[in-house]
């Protein structure tokens, strides 16, 4: 929604976007160039890369300030967005309050099993992913719009468009004629919008644990005229029938989940896929697809930007895990500069 943000909030959020843009667009490239000068034989192992970058750049101001201000911006997004949302609470609540009989549906389940990793929260969100009742707007219409989109973050470099990347991932599905498309971990519906555009004739289902994100997704669907079926459930245990989905889409979920959960999610996706159905995942490329400096920038998020499973994800052999779970015809490849988004896709065999 277009939140009527007051001048002070708008300007202070825009400042964060500019500061992040400067860190990611000026300080970080300077640090990368310095590292390249100092390290002629970068190590292969991720832990060695971490040591190497931190040693070589131990007193390099652009690197130190880039990291500090990236952390600062990540914290300040919520310090500034939550009050901004409160200033516009009546308008936001009116936007969220959509008719129950509008096309599509939202089914909440307060008793859903919540995995431990969900409780740790993501991205330093104040109070956790559901830490504020307007968190959908806080994340999407304030943080995402004013800070993340202009400033870039993590794997998304300054100046890149996150929404375009979602559409790119949807387009990597090998077919366009799926009866039902499921997004596992649909958040506030950004990827669902891309899926609806790419698969206009498919039934679209979104499964997500966060109530605030689902309420946002429901309002988004109604305001955009989309007919989405939204379910509150862990993606390891969706409750959907066996073989009921033609395409599973998973976007930037697996760097938020521990490998054991990732495996369980893949098993669940295989269960709900129809024989011959496809899974397409878009996320960050594994560390060995990135240079030493870049992989350390991504790895840094593990301890500093509320991404506790980033390190495990970066080292996970996802294609092998998909094959172990039972997917066939598994392919992995990168799109765009820096292999982002990184695509891993596979198929459920016809005879399963």
């Amino acid at each position, binding site marked *: 929604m277009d939140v009527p943000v007051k*001048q*002070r909030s*708008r*300007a*202070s959020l*825009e*400042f*964060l976007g*500019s*500061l992040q843009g400067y860190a990611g667009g000026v300080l970080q490239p300077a640090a990368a160039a310095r590292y390249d000068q100092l390290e002629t034989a970068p190590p292969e192992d991720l832990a060695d890369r971490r040591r190497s970058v*931190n040693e070589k750049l*131990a007193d390099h101001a652009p690197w*130190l*300030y880039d*990291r*500090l*201000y990236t*952390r*600062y911006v990540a914290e300040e997004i919520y310090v500034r967005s939550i009050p901004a949302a409160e200033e516009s609470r009546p308008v936001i609540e009116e936007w969220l309050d959509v008719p129950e009989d509008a096309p599509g549906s939202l089914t909440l389940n307060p008793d859903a099993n919540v995995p431990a990793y969900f409780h740790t929260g993501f991205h330093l969100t104040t109070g956790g992913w559901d830490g504020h009742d307007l968190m959908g707007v806080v994340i999407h219409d304030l943080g995402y719009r004013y800070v993340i989109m202009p400033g870039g973050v993590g794997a998304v470099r300054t100046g890149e468009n996150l929404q375009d990347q979602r559409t790119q991932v949807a387009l990597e599905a090998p077919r366009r004629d799926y009866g039902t498309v499921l997004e596992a971990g649909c958040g506030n519906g950004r990827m669902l919008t891309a899926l609806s555009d790419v698969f206009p004739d498919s039934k679209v289902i979104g499964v997500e644990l966060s109530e605030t994100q689902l309420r946002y997704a429901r309002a988004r669907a109604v305001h955009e005229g989309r007919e989405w079926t939204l379910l509150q459930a862990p993606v390891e245990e969706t409750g959907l029938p066996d073989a009921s989905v033609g395409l599973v889409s998973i976007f930037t979920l697996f760097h938020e989940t521990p490998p054991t959960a990732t495996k369980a999610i893949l098993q669940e996706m295989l269960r709900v896929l129809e024989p011959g159905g496809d899974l397409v995942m878009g996320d960050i490329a594994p560390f060995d697809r990135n240079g030493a400096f870049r992989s350390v920038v991504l790895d840094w998020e593990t*301890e*500093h930007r509320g991404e506790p499973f980033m390190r495990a994800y970066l080292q996970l052999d996802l294609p092998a895990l998909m094959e172990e779970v039972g997917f066939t015809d598994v392919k992995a490849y990168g799109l765009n500069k820096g292999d982002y988004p990184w695509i891993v896709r596979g198929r459920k065999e016809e005879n399963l």
Partner: protein
Amino acid sequence: MSGENYLGSDRLDELARMIAEVTSELWVLKDRTLVLEHLLAERGCLDPAAVDELRPSEELVAKLRKEREALVGRVFGAVFDPDTRVKAAVAAVES
């Protein structure tokens, strides 16, 4: 780089964060000034060039000087001990 701080000490981190906050506040004010100028011009209350072309009257010069000196005193006087800072603050109010 340790997980505890980013610049080698907590105090340095805090100072850098303060600079970020001060810059943010500066931008909020600058944004507001530009918005005000835009609105005033849009509503015919201000020739956009008038701000740059203004030659302040003696009265305005004195007011700007007083405000500027107060700002300089507050920012750069932060190195003084508390008693000195209180005296300076009281003097600023009384003037």
